[in-house]
């Protein structure tokens, strides 16, 4: 059951992945990559449940954090042309 859910989420990733590659605009890509990140968090959580290892939630947390930072970096660069 959980496995099926995981597969579906991963499959859904294909849609955003298409957007991420195709573009055409920067914001399409930024959003798509961000969505990939969030989906990854979900899949991680699911895998953690499947394997019955709670540690996976730690990783999911890191993903969420890092995804946030990366997105900020992308947006800041696209808006101001720099990171400083």
């Amino acid at each position: 059951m959980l496995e099926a859910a995981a597969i579906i989420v991963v499959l859904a990733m294909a849609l955003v992945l298409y957007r991420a590659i195709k573009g055409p605009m920067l914001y399409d890509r930024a959003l798509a990559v961000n969505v990939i990140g969030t989906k990854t968090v979900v899949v991680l959580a699911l895998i953690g449940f499947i394997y019955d290892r709670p540690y996976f939630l730690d990783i999911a947390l890191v993903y969420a954090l890092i995804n946030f930072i990366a997105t900020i970096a992308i947006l800041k660069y696209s808006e101001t042309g720099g990171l400083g």
Partner: protein
Amino acid sequence: MVIDFILLFFVVVCAVASVSMKDLLGSVMILGAYSLLMALLWTRYNSVDVAFTEAAVGAGITTVLLIAALSRTFRHEEDPEKPGQSIFPWLTRIARLIPLGVVMLTGAVLIYGTLDMPNFSDPAAPANLHVAPYYIEKSVPETGSINFVTAILASYRGYDTLGEVTVIFTAGICVLILLRRRFHG
């Protein structure tokens, strides 16, 4: 199992897209996604510590650093300029093929080597038999760490880790000597 296949497929797609994209920012972003997916894959393969690191480093720090570099250089890949009108155009054309040849050759060697490898996820693979079981059996009594990876990293092969930290420190100094202009003190 199915998830693995899909993820592997995605990873390859991301790699191709990231390499072939003209917009460098897009390329970097896809590279970030590539790292995330790779980390996901590694979680599937039970290597939680590596996935943890790859998520933090590959998807996070590397992306930020790449963007930082982009912000100080140029966002788009320039069109490959024709390197002058050669007298022998076919020669330049062949020269262009050399990298492809090298890559193919490397791939061929790898494939040749892989043919004799134990199958993927084979429990009897020699890699898992000789040294590894010792760590799993002994790390808790000998080091007190229940995370075997940490036990090896910090204790059995602690010296490698010292080297690893030295590498990081070296990288820091390298960037300082390259980019910093004014110095205090």
